[in-house]
């Protein structure tokens, strides 16, 4: 699905988190929002997911105005920074949550839910952990369960807020590869937030460099490396 962000701004009281930003993300792209802390990456991602509403501007999905769509109607698979797994549910129930939350007419039967959850557990290569609780998982396992839970609703796009932030370097590399594969297999338009320029450059097709609520540059990793538009971008990607 093509995502178009049209002159979006966001203020929290008197602080401007986003000064008008405009950005197009082509269908099927894997895009990274890259920038230092406080640059407005999370805010932009939450606006896409419908968790936050812009002060002005529009969001278009496949050319259709989606600004007023509720968070449920957006059908965005959202992976939170701290994963936000339901602590009182097993991994199985976590992944099944979105399917069980569907209105009765479109809710799959129990057998179908079990089949889909099992398939997703295979996909994230953790087939055995369905009966565990989130507190019994490692950080990397939690991250993968959160991804499976987001995929279970057959989302129209995948939004991830610092998906690898809290993990050690080796697990991070592994999961990066995992995300790349899932993206390539599903063809979902995917946006992830990171402040790690190496991660953005290595994983994304499209890198969006942000600073202080503005978009500094948008481009393919190689182009940004070769031709940084501003001093800020040059400095940020050189570290």
């Amino acid at each position, binding site marked *: 699905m093509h995502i178009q962000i049209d002159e979006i701004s966001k203020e929290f009281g008197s602080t401007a988190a986003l000064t008008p930003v405009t950005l197009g993300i082509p269908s099927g792209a894997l895009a990274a929002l890259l920038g230092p802390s406080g640059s407005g990456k999370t805010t932009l991602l939450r606006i896409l*997911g*419908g*968790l936050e509403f812009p002060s002005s501007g529009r969001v278009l999905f496949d050319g259709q105005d989606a600004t007023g769509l509720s*968070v*449920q109607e*957006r*059908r*965005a*698979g*959202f992976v*939170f920074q*701290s994963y*936000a*797994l*339901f*602590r*009182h549910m097993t991994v199985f129930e976590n992944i099944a*949550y*979105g399917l069980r*939350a*569907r209105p009765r007419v479109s809710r799959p039967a129990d057998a179908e839910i079990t089949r889909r959850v099992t398939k997703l557990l295979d996909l994230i290569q953790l087939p055995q952990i369905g009966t565990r*609780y*989130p*507190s*019994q998982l490692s950080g990397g396992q939690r991250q993968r369960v959160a991804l499976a*839970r*987001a995929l*279970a*609703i057959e989302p129209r796009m995948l939004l991830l807020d610092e998906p690898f932030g809290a993990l050690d370097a080796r697990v991070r590399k592994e999961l990066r590869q995992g995300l790349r594969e899932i993206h390539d297999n599903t063809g979902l338009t995917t946006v992830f937030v990171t402040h790690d320029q190496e991660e953005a450059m290595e994983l994304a097709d499209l890198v969006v460099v942000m600073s202080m609520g503005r978009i500094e540059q948008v481009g393919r990793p190689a182009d940004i490396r070769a031709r940084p538009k501003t001093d800020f971008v040059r400095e940020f990607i050189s570290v």
Partner: protein
Amino acid sequence: MSDATLVDLQRRRAFRAPTNEAPWLRVLLTLGVVGVLALLLFAPLIVVFVDALAQGAGAALASLANPDAESAIWLTLTVTAIVLPLNAAFGIAAAWAITKFDFRGKAFLITLIDLPFSVSPVVAGLCLVLLFGSNSLIGGWLVASGYPIIFALPGIVLATLFVTFPFVARELIPVMIEQGRAEEEAALTLGAGGWRVFFTVTLPNIRWALLYGVLLCNARAMGEFGAVAVVSGKIRGQTATMPITIEMLYNEYLSVAAFSMAALLALLALVTLTLKTLLEWRYADQLAANHRH
């Protein structure tokens, strides 16, 4: 080397973990705590039961079977049954509003929730009398239309509601602040509506705090004296709750009757405590999962 000799060796070396105090200090502290508990908690409890049974179990039970006593017991149970669900709902709503939203006057609302803790119950009762008594505008109208508040069940319920209001909210607020909004937001992105999120995510996550709050609220609701004494008018067989009946019986030197009812009240509190302990024991694993995550 056998286990026994190993233990022996350690004991001889007087091995001590860095977090442990010296043995004599530990014994002293433990004795001190046990002593205070015995003096302040167990001794009164035992005295109540001893005095209640001073003339045998028959006399105690007979005093409780008295129609006025029965009415008091029913009244207290009725008031508690009305107050608990209401205050659970209010408490959840208040804690929800405070922890999940940002709005003006939040600090004021938090102070307001604590008000019943800082205002003397007698003063609270007097305020209700001023507001709803037959001499007031609202009260006069209500009495004329046949719905008296003061010296009747509604007044007792209102007074108890006021006094026990903070318990649930106070238990919930810290837990809900600590848990944040992320899980609720996750549920929303997965397509769940507001009520579904509340019943499948919010409520299960706060159920232990809610249970503690409700139990505390329950104990206080059954035991409330000051505010209820003012608004109830202490009409025997009609508006006298258990604590008020105890006081009246005691003032009339009917000590077996007074202490029998006091023992019953204490027993109700003990049942609540036992219930809590049983639940904790039964769901220990979930409780741990809730805290560790």
